């Protein structure tokens, strides 16, 4: 590699790392408990007791649950329903009114029902009044630094810089290791050399995982703009025939259970886990928007939206999901490591800790630059400089 090219990669590695390291250390440290979020939730919350029913008992009708919710809060509107596909429970979310919900989504509250009996299991306070759970705070720190979309875009930029740092690090690894055996940690040399060798070793063996984490992390950070693009293009085109029509009032709504069955007939084999009511800005003003997924390990992660006319209960469309939303769907498990049981999560945590060592040793190498103790001066420069045609490592070592 030519000296100038090498210098350019070195410059890129240095500055992309320097800018992103603080954020990345925070992301790695908050990511560690998040890997085990399910286990922590299960351990910290009291177990929910569900009615014992014979296998194959169907869920109670969504109409019945919506009716119970409506009688409990007669002045409020239902904004959506979530059907848990792990536990037999259904969540009905409600808000004081559509304008209030549009202005602040955190006025929403949930009623949890036993899916088999329709018994109310639990009720939440409005999200705005609920004290935040510790894991929610950790997630927010990891995802947006408590700064919403601005924070997400900032961390997406940091993620791109991290990927740049990893790629440029790989480019530099080649010339660096020309005269060294794989895995060399030169114990007899200065602390700086040992840390450098460790940085290179752990960096290169975690490189594939780190690039996957970086790119899937960036994808996850971009979910808000990606959904907005989809809403403004594909969804807007699909809703064009309704444009200008008055949206249905609560009285006009057809059966939500009927709409679910319509969606199930339209997309056989698909499990529907949520419905967004007409009125939610994340849905359609005229439709029930159902989200369904397949049943295999992969397709259970790929979501397909189905629009059912909320007035007539007729199918409008099984929406073809654009590639970027499927990429986003796949990025979620690949980032969180929650798709291969507890052993995979433990492996995730160990790889995360190795990345912390790479980041910390990189930071050390940068902070300790230009403070060469006499005798370590050559250490500080080689073997990069040797590639630049000054001294061979072997001669320096001798």
């Amino acid at each position: 590699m030519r000296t100038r090219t090498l210098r350019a990669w070195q410059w890129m590695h240095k500055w992309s790392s320097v800018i992103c390291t603080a954020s990345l250390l925070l992301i790695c440290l908050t990511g560690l408990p998040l890997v085990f979020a399910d286990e922590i939730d299960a351990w910290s919350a009291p177990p929910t007791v569900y009615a014992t029913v014979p296998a194959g008992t169907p869920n109670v009708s969504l109409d019945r649950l919506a009716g119970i919710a409506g009688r409990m809060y007669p002045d409020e509107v239902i904004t959506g329903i979530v059907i848990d596909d792990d536990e037999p429970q259904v969540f009905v979310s409600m808000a004081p009114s559509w304008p209030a919900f549009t202005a602040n989504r955190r006025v929403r509250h949930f009623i949890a029902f036993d899916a088999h009996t329709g018994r109310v299991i639990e009720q939440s306070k409005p999200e705005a009044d609920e004290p935040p759970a510790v894991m929610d705070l950790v997630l927010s720190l990891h995802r947006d630094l408590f700064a919403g979309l601005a924070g997400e875009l900032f961390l997406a930029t940091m993620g791109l810089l991290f990927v740049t740092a990893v790629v440029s690090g790989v480019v530099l690894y080649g010339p660096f290791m020309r005269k060294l055996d794989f895995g060399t940690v030169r114990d007899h040399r200065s602390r700086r050399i040992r840390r450098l060798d460790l940085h290179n070793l752990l960096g290169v063996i975690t490189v594939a995982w780190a690039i996957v984490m970086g790119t899937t992390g960036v994808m996850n950070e971009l979910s808000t703009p990606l959904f907005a693009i989809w809403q403004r293009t594909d969804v807007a085109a699909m809703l064009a025939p309704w444009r200008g029509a008055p949206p249905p009032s609560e009285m006009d709504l057809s059966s939500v259970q009927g709409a679910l069955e319509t969606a199930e007939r339209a997309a056989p084999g698909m499990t529907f886990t949520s419905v967004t009511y007409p009125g939610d800005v994340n849905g359609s003003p005229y439709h029930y928007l159902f989200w369904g997924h397949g049943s295999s390990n992969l397709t259970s992660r790929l979501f397909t939206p189905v629009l059912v006319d909320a007035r007539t209960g007729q199918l409008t469309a099984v929406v073809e999901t654009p590639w970027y939303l499927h990429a986003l769907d796949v990025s979620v498990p690949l980032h969180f490591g929650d798709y291969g049981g507890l052993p995979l999560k433990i492996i995730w945590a160990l790889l995360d800790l190795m990345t912390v060592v790479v980041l910390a040793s990189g930071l050390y190498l940068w902070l300790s630059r230009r403070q060469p103790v006499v005798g370590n001066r050559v250490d500080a420069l080689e073997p990069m400089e040797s590639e630049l045609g000054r001294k061979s490592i072997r001669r320096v070592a001798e």
Partner: protein
Amino acid sequence: MPRSSVFWSVWRWPLAIAALTIVGLLAALLGGHGVWWWLSWTTLLTPIAVALRYWPLRVFFRGD
């Protein structure tokens, strides 16, 4: 040393580990449970095992 052998001596282990990592990441995602999960766990343990071998446990491998 010819260029190609330098390339392989530098890159064979990093490339092998990266390939195993990718196999491990995809096995659990594309395959089902059972054997696919075991494939995923064992392949993804390679970078961890290599790290242990060359870093904290390297003193035990001196002289090889």
